[in-house]
């Protein structure tokens, strides 16, 4: 009888205790709420966005023509060499002189004075330079006038590897040019970079090919031995 009369008090009390115990059991910390309400994440921190990115990257890589990419790399390595190849720059200067009819008199750079016809490879390799230095030469030509200078500069600008004439001084028949050769080492890729989506590269590559399509090679490089595949450690 007494229990029957007390049931209206015991019943809510039992229910409250039941709710408290079960809630405590189900949700033991705030992170569980966050995990349930936020995006699906695995224990490794991966989420569906990353899975989608990896899927798209895989699809893109499966469509890549490896031979074409290799050819593109060779082309780019001849456009911007991976080391300070002063002899390629000199070959470009000589080629421009012969094409335009100018006479290459002297050239001088960080490897020291080198006269035409006396250049030796040992002078270039004797002094080790830091890789961040520009490849710059001061070159003296003999021209027969402004029109020939224009031709000379035109051929210099259409040379591969790329060169930049930062300064030109024509005084009578003598022309002194300050010429900078393009070069850049391969950038080592980090493991983090390989975890991002594949960049769009064709547009810029096509533009470079269009702009340099009629540029002349100064020398055949053969197959560059320092392509990134051999130089980069597989981060996986």
């Amino acid at each position, binding site marked *: 009888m007494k229990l029957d009369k007390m049931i209206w008090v015991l019943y809510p009390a039992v*229910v409250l205790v039941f709710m408290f115990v079960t809630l405590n059991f189900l949700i033991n910390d705030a992170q569980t709420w966050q995990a349930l309400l936020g995006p699906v994440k695995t224990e490794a921190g991966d989420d569906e966005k990353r899975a989608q990115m990896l899927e798209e990257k895989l699809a893109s890589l499966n469509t890549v023509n490896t031979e074409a990419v290799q050819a593109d*790399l060779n082309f780019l390595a001849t456009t911007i060499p991976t080391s300070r190849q002063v002899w390629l720059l000199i070959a470009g200067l000589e080629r421009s002189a012969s094409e335009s009819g100018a006479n290459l008199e002297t050239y001088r750079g960080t490897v020291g004075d080198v006269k035409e016809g006396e250049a030796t490879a040992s002078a270039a390799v004797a002094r080790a330079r830091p890789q961040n230095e520009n490849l710059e030469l001061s070159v003296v030509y003999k021209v027969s006038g*402004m029109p020939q200078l224009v031709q000379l500069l035109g051929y210099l600008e259409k040379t591969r590897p*790329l060169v930049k004439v930062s300064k030109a*001084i024509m005084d009578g028949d003598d022309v002194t040019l300050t010429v900078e050769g393009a070069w850049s080492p391969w950038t080592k890729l980090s493991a983090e970079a390989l975890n991002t989506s594949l960049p769009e*590269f064709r547009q810029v*590559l096509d533009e470079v090919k269009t702009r340099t399509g009629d540029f002349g090679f100064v020398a055949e490089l053969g197959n560059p031995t320092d392509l990134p595949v051999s130089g980069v450690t597989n981060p996986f």
Partner: protein
Amino acid sequence: MEWQWGWPKGVFKMIDLRVAPKAESEKLIRIRRLTKTFTTVILGAYLVSVAGFVGWWWYRQSRQNFVSNKVVRLSQELQALAPVEVNVRAVEARSKLAKNFLDARGTVAEEAGYASQGPIIPSGWEYGGGKMTAKLETNSMEEVRAYTEYLLNRYANVRLESANFSSQKGWLTTVSYSGRNKE
């Protein structure tokens, strides 16, 4: 005379010491009923919520496992294609380098070409530091004026730096110019 408990009957009236059951008030009945009903509703809602929570948790777990397996599978496939990716990224980086070099190197041949196509051909010419200088050998200043007007068609800043006259060579003038006009 009748006697009861040692006293004449009627002396003591009977006092019923038993507690008489009180009639329960209607208000209390209402409160009990309300409490039970309210508790039952709360319990029902709670059970439904817990069922939903458990169901959602189970769904999330299965999605998590699915995503995890998918990422592992994709990572393994991408590992096999890592050399290709490295090459692609190298092409992208080097293409940008080449483009930036081409954009930044200026147009010295074009500038020299324009300088040589004027009314007179300069006998000397300089290029560098964002400025160009033409050295002119003329018989009259009229020719120099014509040349500076020719330069003004293309450049905003044209300045006659020096003018010297000699009977052998005539007028030797130096004209500096810079700043392309906006087209």
